[in-house]
């Protein structure tokens, strides 16, 4: 057996998460002469959503894929990349696929993109609630900063050789409790800080939508923003944060405020005729995909910056390449990014909208039960833990050498439409 025999990519469509691989020597370059015949019988196709490998009878299928959207081979630092195992290759393709999701723009044909913020300064919004500010002050790093540092260190420690790529697999709870973490302590952290982080993410989106509503009170843009606001409030109800959004809105739009929110906006957030659980949308992914990303962290998704990215883009981008958080300079921005992905994960993993409506109705109809905020708070806790569990399973299962990590990071910048040779 050749020493350079490894699982190599015959062809890959990175955004699509489709790849053909074979166990062979590095033979795609001209210097190798000609693609060898040795791999016939050990060729596979990998595809989403499961990223399982399916056996093929010939490499011809994978090579022929380059007639369309597939690139031939994967070369990094001048070498044809070789993975030690098929599992390594599949994990690489999965991560590239997720990261590519950060580059998905709004769907021009099926929806209206969020109007951009006007070039002038956005309206000044009052500060975030006290708990969120306390979180900012008490954290010099980020919520899962230690785990990210471990991940980065593992990556840097791996050999830069691309001919046979070294991989460091993480244990299954690595992103939740760290490589040598204490599960009990971590859970306590989740309960202590997670709620504030969740609020920070949620209010970060609300702030962004509010600014746009104040900038576009009428016209076509107002209709678009109203639609997105409804999606957002439906997601808040699902997570158990609708009451917090209402409380924040009440605080910022009170008598002493100079802010004049459009009537359609106030009616949806604070009125009696519209409730999020009556909203027809029942798809949390759709909700997340129309939530605008706060401008200060938009560059985490793509380079150059696209201002029309959503919370969904952010979630996919971080799940595929958590190192993108390093693009954020301030700890506040990092906390906001983590708050947003925690909010997104909680929205996806929470079972339904209904309990929140029960809580709100109790608050509105039973005079002796004013504490619906506490009810929602207690409900959020199991949702939060469930969300962290889910999120930790989506984040990388393995670290690759930094050159390969950079390749994954760049997957969000790929575009079929504009990238003509």
């Amino acid at each position, binding site marked *: 057996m050749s020493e350079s025999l490894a699982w190599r990519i015959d062809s890959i469509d990175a955004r699509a998460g489709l790849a053909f691989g074979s166990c062979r020597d590095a033979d795609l370059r001209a210097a190798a002469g000609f693609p060898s015949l040795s791999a016939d019988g050990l060729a596979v196709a990998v595809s989403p959503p499961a990223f399982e490998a399916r056996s093929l009878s010939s490499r011809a299928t994978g090579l022929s894929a380059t007639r369309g959207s597939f690139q031939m081979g994967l070369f990094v630092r001048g070498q044809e990349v070789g993975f030690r195992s098929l599992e390594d290759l599949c994990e690489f393709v999965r991560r590239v696929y997720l990261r590519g999701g950060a580059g998905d723009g709004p769907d021009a044909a099926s929806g209206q993109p969020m109007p951009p913020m006007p070039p002038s300064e956005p309206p000044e919004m009052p500060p975030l609630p006290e708990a969120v500010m306390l979180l900012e002050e008490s954290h010099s790093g980020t919520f899962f900063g230690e785990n990210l540092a471990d991940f980065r260190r593992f990556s840097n420690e791996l050999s830069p050789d691309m001919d046979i790529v070294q991989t460091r697999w993480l244990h299954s709870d690595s992103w939740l409790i760290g490589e040598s973490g204490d599960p009990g302590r971590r859970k306590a952290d989740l309960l202590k800080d997670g709620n504030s982080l969740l609020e920070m993410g949620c209010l970060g989106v609300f702030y962004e939508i509010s600014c746009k509503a104040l900038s576009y009170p009428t016209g076509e843009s107002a209709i678009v923003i109203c639609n997105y606001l409804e999606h957002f409030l439906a997601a808040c109800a699902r997570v158990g944060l609708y009451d917090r959004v209402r409380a924040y809105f009440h605080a910022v739009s009170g008598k002493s405020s100079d802010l004049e929110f459009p009537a359609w906006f106030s009616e949806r957030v604070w009125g009696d005729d519209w409730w999020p659980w009556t909203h027809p949308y*029942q798809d949390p992914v759709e909700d997340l995909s129309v939530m605008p990303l706060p401008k200060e962290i938009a560059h985490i998704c793509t380079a150059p910056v696209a201002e029309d990215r959503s919370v969904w883009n952010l979630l996919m981008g971080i799940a595929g390449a958590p190192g993108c958080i390093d693009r954020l300079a301030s700890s506040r921005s990092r906390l906001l990014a983590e708050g947003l992905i925690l909010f997104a994960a909680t929205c996806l993993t929470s079972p339904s909208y209904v309990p929140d409506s029960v809580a709100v109705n109790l608050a509105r109809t039973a005079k002796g039960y004013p504490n619906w905020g506490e009810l929602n708070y207690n409900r959020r806790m199991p949702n939060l833990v469930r969300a962290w569990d889910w999120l930790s399973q989506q984040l990388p299962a393995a670290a690759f050498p930094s050159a390969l990590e950079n390749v994954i990071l760049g997957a969000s910048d790929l575009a079929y439409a504009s990238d*003509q040779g």
Partner: protein
Amino acid sequence: VNWKDRVTSRISELNPSEQNRTFLWANVEAIGRILLGQGPDSDAVIEPAGARIVYNISSAHIASFIKLSQSDDVAPYKNGYDLKKYRIGDEVAPQDLPARVIVDQSLPEVPPESIYFGAVELNGPGIRFYGDFCLVLKCRNNSNPTILDRNSYDLIRSPFREQIEQECDPDGARKAKAKEISGGWNGDLPHIATLKTLASPVPSERRLTTGRVSESILHDEDYIEVLRKSSFNVWDLQEVRVSASDAAYENNIAERLHTGRCPSAAALQWRHRRRRAEFSLHVCGVETRIVTTPGRVR
């Protein structure tokens, strides 16, 4: 190359009894009719039926394909040459990847940059390996393109490769082999399809079904290649097809999402892109059909 003679030879090789020979020729005629979209007793063509050129592409690219169509791009559907900068990792010059150069130089059509490689499909969802959305071109967009009875990259794989390399002029031998496996859509497709169908055991005293013919023409990675010399846009599509298994998977993801057993992020992204792609195509007047049976004609 006379594909009709090859069919005759193949039937002779099968050495059928007189009765079976009658059935075989009836089946051969039926294959031709099915490919043309004709019924068994009439030459009238059932409009949506018959063989089509198809291109499989990921749902991830549908939004861009539509955007390019709407902006009058000269090639909304891109081939590998159009997309040479769509890649991760190092950039590599085409001449540094000899496999493609060798195959392209052997093809009966030139220049390779102008060729948009598709496949012949009857009622199925195309070559799923290349993408979950199968773009089906309208019949009127066929201008008698060259077809190959198999994937052109078979020219550099076993067993053709060994045969070709035994010759004193491998490049010439490869070109000759490419010529040998090629034909024209209008004249040769029924014969090539017949040979593909007859390559697997055919019932001797039974008539072939449409589903059986459809599955013979394109099955997994075994297909008839089309060398179409122009790109196309979204309005050139008759329809888009997706496989029943993908549709079932998509629904399972939705079911799990709504019952609180959250599927993986990759699964959610896959479903989200498919939903958006389907809706965008619908807005453009192109319907997405789930292929539940290879015998479907509309």
